[in-house]
């Protein structure tokens, strides 16, 4: 009998030894390797340098404190030049060659869309893609269950802006100038919903990415009698539209979607940019919320150069906080599946950087509200509470 029990114990111990999980890709005893694909030399190269720098600052802070479960975080960054095909190649390299644990913060809608098959084929999660596109949180799409979005979708932003404008002035005639690409396409989805809800027609004027002349669009908005104009651009486009309108002595209320919240918009537009109101889905970097306070402390501690400090750098920092929390919740021996499960336990997670975030198996959307930030006397001022 003793012999049988002894044999069973030995077999049991061997079985336990055999089922010890193999380490997940990118995870060693001392390090977690994550991959990031940014635009380092394309049209958005400035963001491509600033956003990951904010994340690296927070990773350094965590690493200095001993890392996550004793492992330091290392981020590899590849360049996609805002080209989806290059994004696929770069992601393949990170996942297949460098064997990263997960992907983080890939910049741009079409690059993120293009890498979906890689995510689903390899089961690699993508955390906080750096795009506001609402398609990122669509769970019915390929690899939707592996993508955790943070930003309020462009479609929601468009919808909220129309609601806000009509609340202020029910007779408002709204126009929109949108980039004729995936970004504008997603804004139009929200505008269409708002048109249906309020039974209005929004005047739509498109432009091609990289356009520098907006006289035609501005003239059409003037002719259409638009009292409120939403600009779905980045930095140059809202500045040029507002300056062109000023030159035409056309003075509607200007609004902008997420990317136009960049402080440079108001500064470059000068007097034409006064009163420009943009949506933003996180706490302002210079506000008194706990997230921004920690951010500014770390900027000082790690001697971050002045030009880097601001909205996009803060965004990199805030999304890094989310990833680190996800890694904490993934457990001592993280796997890609346990990271997904860990993130799906977020319930009103709030460290004061974003509004409270909830993820679960049916919801990977992250933030779904915005606050409005207005340019007043050359300074950005938050003028509303969180709008849903």
């Amino acid at each position, binding site marked *: 009998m003793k012999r049988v029990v002894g044999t069973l114990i030995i077999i049991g111990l061997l079985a336990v030894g055999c089922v010890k999980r193999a380490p997940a890709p990118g995870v060693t005893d001392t390090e977690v390797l994550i991959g990031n694909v940014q635009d380092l030399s394309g049209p958005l190269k400035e963001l491509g340098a600033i956003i990951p720098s904010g994340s690296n600052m927070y990773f350094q802070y965590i690493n200095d404190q001993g890392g996550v479960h004793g492992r330091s975080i290392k981020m590899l960054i590849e360049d996609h030049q805002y080209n*989806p095909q290059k994004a696929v*190649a770069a992601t*393949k390299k990170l996942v297949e060659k460098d064997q990263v644990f997960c992907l983080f913060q890939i910049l741009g*809608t*079409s690059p993120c*869309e293009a890498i*979906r098959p890689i995510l689903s084929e390899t089961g690699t999660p993508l955390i906080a893609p750096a795009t506001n596109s609402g*398609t990122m949180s669509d769970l019915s799409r390929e690899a939707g269950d592996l993508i955790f979005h943070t930003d309020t979708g462009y479609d929601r932003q468009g919808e909220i802006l129309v609601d806000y404008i009509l609340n202020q002035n029910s007779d408002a005639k709204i126009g929109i100038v949108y980039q004729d*690409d995936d970004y504008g*396409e997603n804004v139009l989805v929200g505008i269409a919903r708002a048109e249906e809800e309020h039974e209005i027609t929004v005047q739509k004027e498109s432009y091609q990415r990289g356009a520098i002349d907006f006289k035609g669009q501005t003239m059409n908005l003037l002719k259409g009698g638009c009292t409120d104009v939403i600009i779905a651009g980045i930095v140059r486009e809202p500045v040029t539209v507002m300056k062109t309108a000023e030159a035409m002595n056309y003075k509607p209320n200007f609004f902008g979607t997420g990317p136009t919240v960049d402080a440079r918009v108001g500064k470059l537009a000068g007097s034409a940019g006064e009163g420009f109101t943009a949506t933003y889905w996180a706490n302002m970097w210079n506000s008194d919320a706990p997230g921004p306070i920690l951010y500014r402390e770390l900027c000082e501690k790690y001697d971050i150069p002045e030009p880097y400090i601001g909205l996009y750098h803060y965004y990199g920092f805030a999304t890094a906080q989310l990833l680190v929390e996800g890694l904490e919740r993934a457990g001592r021996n993280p796997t890609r599946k346990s990271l997904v499960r860990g993130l799906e336990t977020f319930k009103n997670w709030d460290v004061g950087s974003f509004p409270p975030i909830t993820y679960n198996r049916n919801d990977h959307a992250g933030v779904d509200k915005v606050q409005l930030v207005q340019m007043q006397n050359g300074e950005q001022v938050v003028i509303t509470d969180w709008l849903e």
Partner: protein
Amino acid sequence: MKGRYEDENLYWIPVLIIFVFLLPFILKGLSFSYKYYLFVLNMAGIYIILNVGLDLLSGFTGLLSLGHAAFLAVGAYSSAILVDQFGVPFALSLILSPLVAGLFGFVIGFPALRISGMYLGLTTMGFGFIVKRMIIAFREWTHGSGGLDVSSPVLFGYTIKTDWNNYFLIYTFVVIAVVAGRRIAKSKIGRAFMAIRDSEQAAEAAGINLAKYKMLAFFISGLFAGFAGVLFAHTSSFISTDHFDILLSIYFIIMILVGGVSSIYGAVLGTLFIVLLDNLFVPLLKDQIHFWFNTQAGDIQSLIFGLIMFLFIIFQPMGLYGMWLKMRIYWKLFPFNPRQRFT
């Protein structure tokens, strides 16, 4: 009368084809990152098919095209729409979609009857912009600039999904494309193309119908690009207007110039050289480039490619394939070869 390939040594071709199909197994044995290398080779394979067609147009016929990314887009979108929205089988789309791209080529061939050189290049570049606008305008089918999800290829009831399977699909068609390209180049049509390139007046005097052959060159080139587009769409699973920008068309020209114009093998070598340089060697050196030049590798990538093209045009106008031929002659004549021959 000499046979079409009599002055060539064709024995190595089956060996090369066997090597092409054994390569994934070799890579798998050598590196755990073999899937990444296969992905890069798949991309090269698709571009090889396109560049064989581009070489027939720009190399053999002398008609410059700076809009071949648009033909790729036409093939890709046609197939994505036919297969996923109209339920056409992938195998049938492999025939229909290239025909659509070929017809676009046929239409673009019209201006080629009156203009040539850089003006034709600019016209084809304009074609690239038109196609992009058309994709955005027909958003009901194309989803505009939002991009289009594309299903994986299904052949004989078997879904081809991974890079491993894609490799065998793509390189089967690469072999077919290269053989077809060489057959065309060595045929009456190929000779007519070359006659037009060398002197339109002389070609016309020899009884060659300029209009017919120029438009045929565009049609055939469109067919190859459309074919590449079908494979591109279904193996990438997602296509958008950002995939087919003007820079890609210029890279195609660089590929055939580096490989050696008017040579099908040159198109193959040039494509492999540029794609491998772009995806394997530039990323390897990116840290050194950042350290020495204080800039991103991507910032000077176009500079590197431009420089390579210049160096080839000045020092090796016959490209990589020309270099190979010279080397072969050098060793054949060894030791009776004058030094000047190998320059």
